[in-house]
């Protein structure tokens, strides 16, 4: 049992508050040094008015953070009765100790209105005790800040541990396994020679025509693979399309240029283009200068590509990958230059811009289907069929959900009224 003393002089009036705290010593603290706090609040801190000590939070709980790799404990509490937005409380301090009677040190601070924090600095298997206090920060006439703290509410022991399965993702795992099984089944089925029907995708059908147009006009084809790195699946899809475009460009003997935003994408794209030119039987036509790095900066890249478009006036421009704000800057410039433009991205927020500015747009999943669609490789086409099974499942679930929600809504209101009407009459 430890006591804390707070005293202040206010025009002859002396305020003395003494608190009994069951677990550890609490102090009025400078916000700059939460762990090495002074023992008492300076008198100047309370020189103009003497704020009341905040009421303590209640119901403190400390539990192992669920579904994680260990090393963290969640601490939650019920708000202090004075935590009502009236500036009677500045926030909460969370302290931790390895024993209920040991020294508690500050491990976290939460703002007014908060009801939990996560302590990410625990060792799995060790017991930890926590205390939470509400505090009010005050500033004296000299500008020095001090804190008044409430009585502590304590909880514990709690022990962190790593989990073997993230239970929040159970449903996701079931869907992933089911859809993956469907994809694998159709890949196997297509491999055994079963014909796979894939609907026509206008944007991909237009690739040959677009490269052909550049050939007829004697101008270059420009390929822009987005601004994300190779760890983004959209970039992988974009590079796959680049392979097909490069093969066509090699066959038609049309110049293809690909300015890059990421060095790793440049290296990969060069390899893909080199292979494509070799497949087309024209390995000598390929040069590393066709695929070059510009800058990693988003708008610097947009400026460079805009410059290339306006100076060289390419006949055809492909935008395939992950795009952000630069999407419209690039595609509107291409539009102004009179190029035929084919875009594809899985960024829903950029799709309207591409639809408005480009001749053809691959919407979301069509970008990922492009490689399979253009290669016509049976196993890849089979994976698209498996994807369709996933869509059918989601469609059915949405229909069931909408029906249930509608029936539930009706039973709550309209159906209830009808039932009442029938009962009365």
């Amino acid at each position: 049992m430890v006591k804390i003393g707070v005293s202040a002089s206010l025009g002859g009036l002396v305020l003395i508050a003494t608190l009994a705290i069951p677990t550890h010593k609490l102090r009025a603290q400078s916000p700059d040094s939460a762990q090495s706090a002074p023992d008492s609040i300076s008198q100047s801190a309370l020189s103009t008015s003497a704020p009341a000590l905040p009421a303590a939070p209640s119901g403190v709980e400390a539990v192992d953070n669920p579904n994680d790799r260990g090393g963290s404990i969640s601490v939650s509490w019920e708000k202090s009765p004075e935590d009502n937005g009236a500036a009677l409380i500045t926030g909460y301090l969370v302290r931790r100790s390895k024993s209920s009677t040991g020294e508690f040190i500050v491990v976290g601070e939460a703002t007014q209105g908060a009801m939990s924090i996560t302590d990410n600095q625990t060792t799995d298997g060790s017991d930890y005790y926590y205390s939470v206090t509400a505090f009010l920060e005050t500033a004296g006439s000299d500008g020095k800040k001090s804190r008044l703290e409430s009585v502590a509410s304590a909880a514990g022991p709690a022990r962190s541990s790593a989990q073997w399965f993230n239970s929040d993702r159970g449903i996701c795992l079931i869907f992933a396994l089911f859809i993956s099984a469907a994809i694998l089944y159709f890949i196997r089925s297509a491999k055994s020679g079963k014909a796979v029907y894939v609907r026509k995708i206008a944007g991909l059908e237009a690739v040959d025509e677009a490269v052909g147009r550049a050939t007829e006009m004697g101008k270059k084809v420009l390929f822009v693979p987005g601004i994300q790195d190779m760890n983004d699946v959209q970039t992988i899809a974009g590079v796959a399309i680049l392979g097909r475009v490069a093969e066509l460009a090699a066959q038609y003997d049309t110049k293809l240029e690909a300015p890059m935003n990421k060095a790793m994408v440049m290296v990969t794209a060069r390899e893909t283009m080199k292979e494509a030119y070799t497949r087309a039987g024209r390995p000598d036509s390929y040069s590393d200068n066709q695929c070059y790095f510009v800058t990693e900066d988003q708008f610097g890249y947009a400026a460079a590509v805009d410059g290339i478009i306006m100076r060289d006036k390419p006949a055809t421009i492909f935008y395939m990958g992950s795009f952000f704000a630069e999407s419209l800057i690039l595609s509107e410039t291409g539009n102004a230059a009179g190029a035929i433009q084919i875009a594809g991205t899985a960024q829903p927020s950029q799709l309207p811009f591409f639809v408005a500015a480009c001749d053809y747009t691959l919407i979301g999943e069509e970008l990922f289907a492009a490689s399979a669609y253009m290669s016509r490789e049976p196993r890849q086409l089979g994976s698209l069929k498996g994807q369709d099974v996933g869509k059918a499942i989601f469609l059915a679930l949405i229909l069931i959900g909408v029906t249930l929600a509608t029936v539930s809504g009706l039973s709550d209101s309209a159906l209830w009224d009808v039932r009442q009407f029938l009962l009365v009459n």
Partner: protein
Amino acid sequence: MRREIPLIITTVAGLVFAVSYFIPHWPFGEAESIFGDWISIVQAFAIWLGVLSLVKVSLEKVSRQPHERPYALVTIITLVGTIVAGLWAGIAGLGQTPMVSFRDTAAFSWIYEYLYTSLTSTMFSILAFFVASAAYRAFRARNFEATLLLIAGFFVMGGRVPLFDLALGSVTGVDTSIFSDFADWIMNYPNSAGQRAIMIGIALGIMSSSLRVILGIERSHIGGES
């Protein structure tokens, strides 16, 4: 082996990432951060390849393409100038805390604040004009779908600002929010439904694409089939 090793790395990394999404326990839980560190290291080295490529292409433009010469010269001069300013600051700050002196150096900060930031802001601000020109083309009522888009756009734009409600209120003498409510309805229901349909398709596309990469069916990113 030129094909097999990248395929094995892709398959192992893909499977470990997929498993770590569901199993947080060691070693899977750590895998994501370990691979993330590796990616950062590889990216840091790859940037040198990028800079070499930029210098090589720019020098060739200077020597062989007269119409590209001014732009290539600007690129080389600014690249070298920025590197020199940064290195100079680093050398000058060797006796101090390097990063502090690096940030505080006049030349490097000047380049960042008065060249880089203003040029970036200029490019971003051009977007406003492009939005206007793209919207003008998109909202032309050429067919049924474009007409629907025009009508929806008209009500959403009118409802997002208080103009329509204010005009109707001034005519009827009653405060109303009918246009903003209708704009909200368009955004919350037809728009959200369309966006979610696209996002479900994207999620399935990513899953299918990832499986193709992990299983080695999709090999375009490592140069193709041969």
